[in-house]
């Protein structure tokens, strides 16, 4: 009966307090929309300056082939100097230079192959590689088209076909958005409990609760369960946004989703409680929260950067970032389905994380005021 009464109190609180609703529902919307639309690795319309010193027909053909690629946006530059200026000013990302010896070399087989030069702003090495890749394939398409016209297409070639599983359109949103959900869950979970605890202290109600027959376990449990409910609501909203707004398919089952999110919420809520119980100083608490939630969730969880590409020592560090387990599960559930071989080990990791934070909280939150 005590627990029921405490829960009723928590629920009423939540219904009447706007900040909890904001954290659980408004924040996910804002974060999902900004991050989902903001972080995209799908190159499109990369600006390319093209300098061609070749007969008009060849030039036009090439420009058309390049521009036909949805990934490139072509501008013709009059000279290499102009192109370089545009690159320095940041107006284009790359410059393709076709010299006047290109056409002759192409039509005759000589010792030196027909070459074109691509100068790329490699500040962002990933996008530079992507651009190189698209320019290269656009040129090959143009070449193949030319040869086919002249019926000069050699038979002796190797035709490599690609099959992209789980994400045939190669949309980066498909793997980033599930990762964003993990980030949202981390922040929401931590913030929900943190704000509730300090409010009780400020109002003085924590004292009367501690002097009443309510047990510590019941107090923590009531708070956890209500925030848990909110967290689940938050998660459902996030999944909805992911599938409806971002068109990310969901191929998994709800059981796996529920299990993963529940465990993760337990971890995050516990973390929030732990932080707020431990640090009365808000500045320290703020830094701690940031340190442990947002940046690691973005950088180390596998949401954006592939963990297997990181140095070994850092991969070990990510084992201690529970968001990593959730991201792995979510990416699998959304795009692949119920692959239990991936899901079970990650669930285990989440379970460990939850146990750690919750027991830390119970240890630190003593019943007494001292």
């Amino acid at each position, binding site marked *: 009966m005590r627990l*029921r009464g405490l829960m*009723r*109190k928590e629920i009423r*609180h939540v219904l009447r307090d706007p900040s909890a609703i904001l954290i659980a529902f408004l924040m996910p919307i804002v974060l999902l929309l900004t991050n989902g639309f903001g972080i995209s690795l799908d190159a499109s319309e990369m600006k390319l300056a093209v300098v061609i010193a070749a007969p008009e027909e060849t030039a036009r053909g090439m420009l058309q082939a390049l521009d036909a690629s949805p990934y490139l946006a072509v501008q013709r530059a009059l000279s290499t100097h102009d192109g370089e200026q545009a690159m320095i000013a940041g107006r284009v990302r790359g410059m393709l230079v076709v010299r006047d010896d290109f056409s002759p070399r192409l039509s005759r087989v000589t010792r030196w192959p027909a070459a074109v030069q691509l100068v790329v702003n490699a500040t962002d090495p990933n996008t530079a590689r992507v651009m190189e890749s698209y320019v290269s394939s656009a040129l090959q398409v143009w070449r193949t088209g030319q040869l086919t016209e002249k019926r000069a297409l050699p038979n002796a070639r190797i035709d490599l076909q690609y099959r992209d599983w789980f994400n045939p359109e190669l949309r980066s949103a498909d793997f980033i958005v599930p990762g964003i959900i993990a980030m949202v869950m981390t922040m929401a979970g931590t913030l929900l409990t943190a704000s509730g605890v300090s409010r009780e202290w400020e109002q*003085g109600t924590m004292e*009367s609760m501690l*002097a009443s*027959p309510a047990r510590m376990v019941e107090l923590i449990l009531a708070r956890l369960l209500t925030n848990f409910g909110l967290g689940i609501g938050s998660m459902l909203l996030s999944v909805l946004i992911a599938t409806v707004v971002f068109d990310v398919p969901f191929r998994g089952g709800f059981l796996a989703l529920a299990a993963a999110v529940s465990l993760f919420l337990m971890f995050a809520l516990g973390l929030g409680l732990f932080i707020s119980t431990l640090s009365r100083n808000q500045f320290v608490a703020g830094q701690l929260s940031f340190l442990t939630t947002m940046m690691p969730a973005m950088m180390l969880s596998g949401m954006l950067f592939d963990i297997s590409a990181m140095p070994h020592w850092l991969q070990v560090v990510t084992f201690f970032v529970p968001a990593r387990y959730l991201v792995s599960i979510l990416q699998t559930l959304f795009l692949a389905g119920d692959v239990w071989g991936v899901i079970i080990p990650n669930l285990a990791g989440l379970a460990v994380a939850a146990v750690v934070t919750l027991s830390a909280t119970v240890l630190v939150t003593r*019943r007494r005021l001292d």
Partner: protein
Amino acid sequence: MTDPVVVVDAVRHVFPGPHVALDNLSATIRPGVITGLVGPDGAGKTTLIRLIAGLLRPEQGRIVVLGHDMAISAAAAHRAIGYMPQRFGLYEDLSVAENLDLFADLHAMTAALRAERIARLLQFTGLRSFTKRLAGQLSGGMKQKLGLACALLARPRLLLLDEPSVGVDPASRRELWAIVSAMLEEGQADDMAVLWATAYLDEAGRCDDVLLLHEGQLLAHGPPEAFLEPTRGRVFRLGIAPEQRRKAARQAAADPAVLDALVAGDALRIVLREGAGVPDAEVLGGVSLEPLAPRFEDGFVALLAPPSPPDPLPRGEGELVGGVGSEDAITVADLVRRFGTFTAVDRVSFNVRRGEIFGLLGPNGAGKSTIFRMLCGLLRPSGGQARVAGADLLRAPAEARARIGYMAQRFSLYAQLSVLENLRFFARVYGLDRVAGARAIDAALTGFDLADIASGIAGDLPLGLKQRLALAAALLHGPDILFLDEPTSGIDPLTRREFWSRIGRLADEGVTILVTSHFMDEAEYCDRLGIVNQGRLAAVDTPAALRARVRTDALPDPTLEDAFIALVSAQ
């Protein structure tokens, strides 16, 4: 005689700091009576109550409640304890009924028992028609009554009340007392014990048993009469010329035979030192001298006072102008302030003359601080006008604000800086250059007796010293007008008297002082008073005149509290 409900055995408790909150305290608390726990802020009352409630574990010693050692089996005792912490302990988002329901749930009360008990308590506290209202929207007095109801809900064997009546309007204060007494009577069979912590000495006088704490020590434990006895025959009423009350009080206090001199109405209340001969009225600067029956406060002061007279306060730098000037330093005309639909200040008008001590008297939530803030330029009025030294501080240039000093209700200096660093900061901010600043700081350190703790961290100081520092900082730049918001709340009586001494001297030097307070009796020090209740000014007059207004045959010698209740109900 039944066993005591609480046994406190040689308890010592220390907070990190280190700060000794309680030292070697032993006491018992009996059922069937109201035991008062008296002492100023920082005496250790809240610490003791928390220890008894099992919220803290004593460093040394034991506390046994109803046979349970609180360090070991507190949970068992919690079922029989009703606790009301200093700040209500209510959920402001929940309604009255929901709060009560919660406490009923926590004590696992059955539906039938709950219904009956809640109905009874609602009736007793007068909250029956407010069951659906959110606790946060109740007035201060009603909140306290609700807190009391929640604590009483499960028929506790031990009722712990931590300053339940602080800052509440006088009528509600009396009602709270009545409720508890009635519950005590009714629960005779249950043998409820009540521990009532308070800083109000009149309440302490009405308890059956009193524990007097001061700086963590138990100074005395016994019925109130026991406190009075030592001072019997040493208390006198000194009639004086009405205009010279403050000066007379200072003079009398300086006399080596006098332990305590208090302004009380048109006269002084004098308590002589033990063994001192009765002096002549003229020696003390008065006109007549009559013996009086001692009061609890007299006994209290006698216990706390240092054995030899303290050094007299160092003379201030200013000349004694003496008396009140003729021009207005502060004018308030039809001042209004609304917060949404709630009118906090409703057409208040009054004037304060130069060199006058003007008090705004009223309970918490009456609107005193709001008026203050508007005067200081911290809040924009919704209507009306407030002028200080001829200027509207909201729009005034910085120079105008350099002429006022402000001491806020809560300690509002920088807790993490030292005393000296705080003083330096405020000296610079008020435009004092290096030389003038150094001089002012030196004067402040000596004048306020802060020199020994100049490098101490402000936040670690006990409350009395904090208040002194705040006052020193407010005076650094030599302002003409001083705003003091509840400057003495929580301070022990001796420090309070010293404070009023300083204030009195400042006023005599020509500084205009505007004070707010909810301690009715302190208001006697003021030249004139404004009685504020629920945003309206019920009356403005001298303390003597206010008391005279409510004098009747039934009430021949009313206190200011009586005056307050009468004037407010007549509103």
